[in-house]
């Protein structure tokens, strides 16, 4: 025991910390002053002083020399606050010295014993609570009888803490109360207070599960009448027990089912989770899912809704059938004003539509989308976009509803919110091509709504659709007039520049509406060009549809007029895109003047064909990526394979990794055995011929770095006062100084230093080792010193790909927002564009946001977005724009943007360094 605790203290970095209070360290503590106060001060001053002593202690300055004074002068006090502070003080001080209990602690033990028998129940209670944190058997031992007596004290407050104290003593030092389970079991049988019972139950189920089960089976029928507190813990027990012996499950399922209807939402939630882990029978899953949905709709708290939705998503993964039945209930949650919640709901809905429920679903969605029209509607435009998206995807699955959906959606073309309007028009474009029977209706509707469009891209697609799919002269004329009307402003006689200026000024004053002609005159020449070509196409269509000669000529003239006006405007414009737009418009004119059949074929037919092909390609890619994501994870040959048939029936609940989860959360990661890659993280710190040879093994945890330093004495002398002094550069902080130690001749010791990291930055750790040679008479001033090599902390360890949490939209908005940019010229020996992007993603740990289908080397140019998040919550974005040169080399730039400088710089360095791949033989 003693040796074990000695080991613990030697690795003092890993000591658990129970309390953390921020304290601005001012002057170094004045021990004398403290002593004065403790000896002579009044209670108030003592309270204050003791607080400060505790603060010093928890912030790394143990004032151990005050221990005796405090024992002498503070412990005797009756002051309640002092008493409680003392408990915290005992909690935080170092209670051992060189692995042995400090002798002063015996005195403390004495006072604790008194407090355990104190007439004040609160003092008893809090002292018992403190015992839960005490890990020194020598101190606990004499207190055990008093703790036991407190189980029978009249105040529940004392009893419930006594139970916890026994629980902790038993779980750490079983031999001190070997009969604890028996004791608590009997206690549980007679106890009336819910909280005491709960604690007793916790104790039993952690220390003696069989006892807990025994108790549970005697009261199983009464469970529904228990308080929520006890129910809660019973549910937890059932989950644990059943995980161990699945054969017991049948016994408890009924109980859990009743608890699903508990009035306490917490119990309900817990029961649902437990039920899912117990059984995957449809009834059970349905029960659990309904309980979740009940919580989803009745709890007002958004957090609950979000987490419940996550649970439902999980259920959906394994039991999609059941979710399909319940989808209408889930949709009730759309009434929440929280967009994130609606997003999740719609996400579930999207995958759960079936031919059976599609009509209902669409009905609800339509209703919702109608709601968004009202001004007071607070979820805003993004919600509308979401709804449109959902309708889009779900109705494409079941085209029979398209007829009723499309006209509704087209009304939202005029939306100023770009995303939803774009979504609609893209949807429409797809439908028009895939479902020719809707073509006529859609184009008509589109023409009607053309003038309401306010977004350039939407207008472009709209005119393209119209020109492509219009199939009657009437519609065509209607479409043309509509376009002509939209451009009317531009067609008016051209004002002189001065007048323009005056006009634009006066217009600005009026606060002019966004309109298509405005967009063009503001320099959107791409729009102008596509309108031109669409007009051109309209003319050709008109020819095909055999419009009568006069009208056709008129149309041609009018189209040419528009083109000329646009070309003239383009000539005067300064915008950079003008040139290509200008050329495009000129070619349109040529097309109208000289109808070449070959060109005509391109305009009329090939365009449509390539679009059809594109759609096919999209579908193909989608199904391919679905296949990919649906693929099973690779299973290592030596891992256990669960074979459903060999397990007891329906024991196939979701894997319950409760304990792992807790262990992970607390941050204790047991990495058993270093694999070869970990050996790469060993740094040599000093030379082989130095008197001390040192090497460090760098373990990077989430927020801290632990240096495991091995120190070898290379001399034949004993080295004393070996002190490791570490200094850091960057956002690193040394947590604790490594205490000095002595190394015998030719011996090896290890030391641990932990360093806190608070942001993603390339850090450097430097250090020295100083030591005295034993027996040498030299003065202390000329200490021996070994200067250590630097250890560079790799920023990549903190970076995680974030492409799952990012959307294109978010990327763009962050891209604009982030202030730091680092631009790195591409210089690589990789010759393939996609390979290069993947290489960068691999070396920087950044995720590729650009979907796979858009990554291709065929065109010789490539632009890809990458994004990552550090564990400290800093985002980093990168954009790679590369082009293949004639000589096969890749040229271009990588731009990294981040909110803080550190990560942008360090990622940049990393990329610049690693962008070449090692040639197999150079």
């Amino acid at each position, binding site marked *: 025991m003693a040796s074990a605790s000695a080991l613990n203290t030697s690795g003092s970095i890993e000591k*658990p*910390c129970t309390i953390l209070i921020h304290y601005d360290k001012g002057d170094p503590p004045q021990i004398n002053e403290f002593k004065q106060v403790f000896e002579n001060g009044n209670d108030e001053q003592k309270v204050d002083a003791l607080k400060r002593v505790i603060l010093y202690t928890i912030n790394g300055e143990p004032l151990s020399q005050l221990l005796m004074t405090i024992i*002498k002068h503070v412990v005797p006090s009756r002051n309640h606050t002092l008493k409680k502070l003392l408990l915290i003080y005992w909690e935080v001080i170092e209670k051992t010295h060189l692995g042995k209990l400090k002798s002063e602690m015996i005195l403390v033990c004495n006072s604790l014993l008194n407090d355990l028998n104190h007439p004040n129940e609160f003092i008893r209670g809090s002292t018992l609570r403190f015992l839960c944190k005490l890990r020194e058997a020598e101190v606990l031992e004499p207190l055990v009888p008093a703790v036991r007596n407190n189980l029978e004290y009249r105040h529940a407050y004392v009893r419930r803490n006594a139970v916890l104290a026994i629980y902790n003593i038993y779980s750490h030092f079983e031999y001190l109360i070997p009969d604890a389970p028996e004791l608590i079991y009997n206690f549980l049988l007679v106890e009336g207070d819910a909280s005491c019972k709960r604690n007793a139950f916790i104790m039993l189920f952690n220390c003696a599960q069989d006892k807990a089960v025994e108790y549970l089976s005697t009261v199983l029928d009464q469970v529904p009448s228990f308080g929520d507190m006890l129910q809660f*813990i019973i549910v937890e027990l059932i989950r644990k027990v059943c995980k161990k012996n699945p054969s017991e499950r049948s016994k408890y399922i009924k109980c859990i089912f009743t608890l699903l209807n508990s009035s306490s939402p*917490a119990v309900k939630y817990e029961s649902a989770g437990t039920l899912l882990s117990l059984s995957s029978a449809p009834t059970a899953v349905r029960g659990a899912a309904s309980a979740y949905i009940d919580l989803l709709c009745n709890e007002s708290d958004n957090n609950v809704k979000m987490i419940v939705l996550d649970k439902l998503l999980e259920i959906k993964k394994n039991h999609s059938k059941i979710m399909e039945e319940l989808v209408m209930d889930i949709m009730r949650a759309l009434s929440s004003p929280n967009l*994130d919640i609606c997003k999740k709901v719609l996400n579930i809905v999207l995958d759960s539509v079936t031919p059976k429920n599609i009509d209902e679903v669409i009905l609800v969605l339509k209703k919702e989308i109608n709601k968004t029209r009202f001004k007071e509607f607070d979820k805003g435009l993004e919600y509308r976009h979401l709804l449109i998206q959902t309708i889009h995807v779900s109705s494409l699955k079941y085209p029979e509803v398209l007829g009723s959906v499309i006209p509704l959606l087209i009304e939202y073309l005029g939306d100023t919110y770009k995303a939803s309007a774009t979504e609609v028009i893209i949807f429409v474009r797809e439908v028009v091509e895939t479902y020719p029977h809707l073509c006529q209706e859609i184009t008509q509707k589109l023409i009607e709504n053309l003038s309401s469009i306010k977004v350039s891209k939407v207008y472009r697609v709209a005119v393209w659709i119209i020109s492509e799919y219009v199939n009657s002269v009437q519609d065509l004329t209607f479409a043309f007039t509509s376009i002509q009307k939209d451009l009317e402003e531009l067609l008016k006689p051209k004002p002189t520049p001065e007048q323009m200026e005056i006009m634009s000024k006066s217009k600005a004053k009026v606060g002019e509406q966004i309109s298509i002609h405005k967009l063009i005159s503001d320099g959107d020449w791409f729009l102008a060009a596509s309108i031109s070509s669409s007009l051109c196409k309209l003319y050709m269509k008109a020819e095909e549809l055999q419009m009568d000669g006069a009208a056709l000529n008129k149309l041609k003239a009018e189209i040419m007029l528009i083109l000329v006006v646009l070309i003239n405007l383009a000539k005067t414009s300064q915008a950079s895109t003008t040139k290509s737009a200008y050329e495009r418009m000129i070619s349109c004119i040529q097309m109208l003047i000289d109808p070449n059949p070959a060109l005509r074929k391109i305009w009329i037919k090939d365009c449509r064909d390539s679009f059809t092909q594109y759609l096919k390609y999209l579908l193909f890619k989608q199904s391919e990526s679905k296949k990919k994501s649906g693929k099973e994870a690779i299973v290592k040959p030596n891992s256990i394979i669960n074979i459903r048939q060999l397990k007891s029936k329906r024991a196939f609940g979701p894997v319950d990794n409760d304990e792992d989860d807790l262990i992970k959360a607390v941050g204790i990661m047991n990495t058993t055995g270093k694999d070869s890659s970990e050996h790469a993280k060993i740094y040599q710190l000093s030379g082989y011929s130095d008197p001390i040879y040192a090497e460090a093994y760098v373990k990077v945890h989430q927020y801290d770095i632990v240096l495991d330093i091995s120190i070898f004495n290379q001399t034949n002398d004993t080295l004393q006062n070996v002190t490791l002094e570490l200094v850091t550069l960057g956002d690193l902080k040394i947590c604790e100084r490594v205490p000095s130690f002595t190394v015998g001749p030719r011996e090896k010791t290890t030391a641990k230093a932990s360093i806190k990291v*608070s942001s993603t930055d390339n850090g450097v750790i430097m250090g020295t080792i100083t030591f005295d040679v034993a027996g040498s008479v030299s003065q202390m001033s000329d200490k021996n010193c070994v200067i250590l090599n630097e250890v560079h902390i790799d920023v990549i360890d903190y970076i995680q790909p974030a492409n799952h949490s990012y959307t294109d939209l978010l990327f763009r908005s962050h891209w604009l927002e982030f202030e730091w940019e680092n631009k790195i010229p591409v210089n690589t020996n990789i010759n393939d564009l996609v390979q290069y992007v993947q290489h960068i993603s691999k070396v920087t740990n950044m995720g590729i946001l650009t979907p796979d289908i858009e990554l291709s080397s065929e065109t010789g140019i490539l632009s890809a977005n990458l994004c990552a998040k550090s564990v400290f*919550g800093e985002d980093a974005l990168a954009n790679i724009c590369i082009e293949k040169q004639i000589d096969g080399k890749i040229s271009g730039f990588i731009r990294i943007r981040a909110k803080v400088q550190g990560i942008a710089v360090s990622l940049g360095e990393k990329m610049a360094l690693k962008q070449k791949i090692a040639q197999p033989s150079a």
Partner: protein
Amino acid sequence: MVVLAAAICTKNGKPLLSRQFSEMTKSRVEGLLSAFPKLIGTGKQHTFIETENIRYVYQPLESLYIVLITNKNSNILEDLETLHLLAKLVPEYANFDEHDISRKAFELVFTFDEVIAMGYKERVNVQQIKTFISMESHEEERARKEEQMREKEAKNEGRRKIKELEKIRAENIVKGGRYAGIGSGSGGYIPVPTNSSERNPSSSPTTGYIPPQPHINTKQAPGKEGMKLSKATNKNSAIAQVLKEERVVEKVEDVAAHLDSSPNQLLPTTPAIPQEGVHITIEEEFMALVENDGTVDTIDIKGGLLVTINDSNISKIKIPTAQGPLARKSFQFNTHPLIDKQLFVESNLLKLKDPSRGFPSTGILKWRCKTTDDSMIPLKVSCWPSPGRDSTTVNMEYESLASFELKNIQIFIPNPSASSPIVNNIDGLYEYNTKEKMVVWKIPMIDDTNRTGSMEFTVKGNSSNFYPLSVFFNATTTMCDISIKDVLYEDSNESIRFSSESTLSVDKYEINN
């Protein structure tokens, strides 16, 4: 499925306070909390964040966040309830600003403790918690009243005793003059240089320079002393009673130690032993001058054995003694002229040469050791100043080679600089005497558990002149380690009840550079 920690932090991630309910390391907690504000996205309408391993559930409180760290399987409904309760409690004890939260941190931690037990939420409301925190208990009130009654009685008793005592002392001073203190074992307290004059009378008897006392005086004085002593213990026991009731100390033995520590209290540290018919006092004084490098200039140990016969019926006795291993080797013994020296040398028996005479009630044996053998120093102290540019760090170290316990060790270190020292780490206690510019390093006791110890302090200025160090200590075992085996009637060889005490004290022990 538990709350791992409850914390309050500022919007930019400075943790103001955090209470952990599971075992976590400090760096982990700090890391989690400082990462937390960065993870809060803008425009989110829910207040939890999930990372790979944990979940934060939080609530903004003006410019602060109150946040629970839970594992991901934790029951969100429970956690939210806990969070809301905490958020309700915080304003009961502090304002929502950084400063006030820090100031009231402990009170808040207490409330957190009431809400969450080992990570599980307790079913309590704000009102209940307030009661828990205020800790007002009827039972305590009742118990205290009872206690007060008893205490009052004990105090009255004590006061009466003290008065009596003082009366007797006053009489003593009138009658007994300077010898009033002999029997009270005054070697037990450590003289400090400032009041060295007081020390002389108590040390003089042991050196044996005092002429034999007139019969009447010696007979009277011890008698008085005995009475005084018993009174003193009575007083002690009264106080002990009080202290015991006050739950300060458990055993009467602790009382002395307890009282001793209080300032202005000059009671002997070793509890005075009640004297029997024959009382034997062994006193030894240690004097040494050494240099910091360990060279011993002189060591001079002088001791004496003093027999006091309180019972006039007893006169013919012999005293067999035992001696430690060092005694014969290093010490020279000198017996009282009336004692048979030969017999003592041969068989360690103290017996009169002439059996017809009465045994002298005085010092009968003296011993001395003058040496430069450093193994005779029971406590070695070394001082290592390392002058820096503007401050000097002094490392002090002690090592006790003796096999017995040393008590009340005080090491006086002169401080050459004007500023008071900053003690960086210390085994034991220290005091700083600003007037004398002395750092006093105190170690209450050295036994086998702390044979070595160290202290490090820093003073401003560049200096290495921390000499001479003076060291004081005492012990109940002497260097010579002579002990009384028995006291026998000379003729009948029957044992006589006797009492003895032995003390080792320091006359002068200086360490020079």
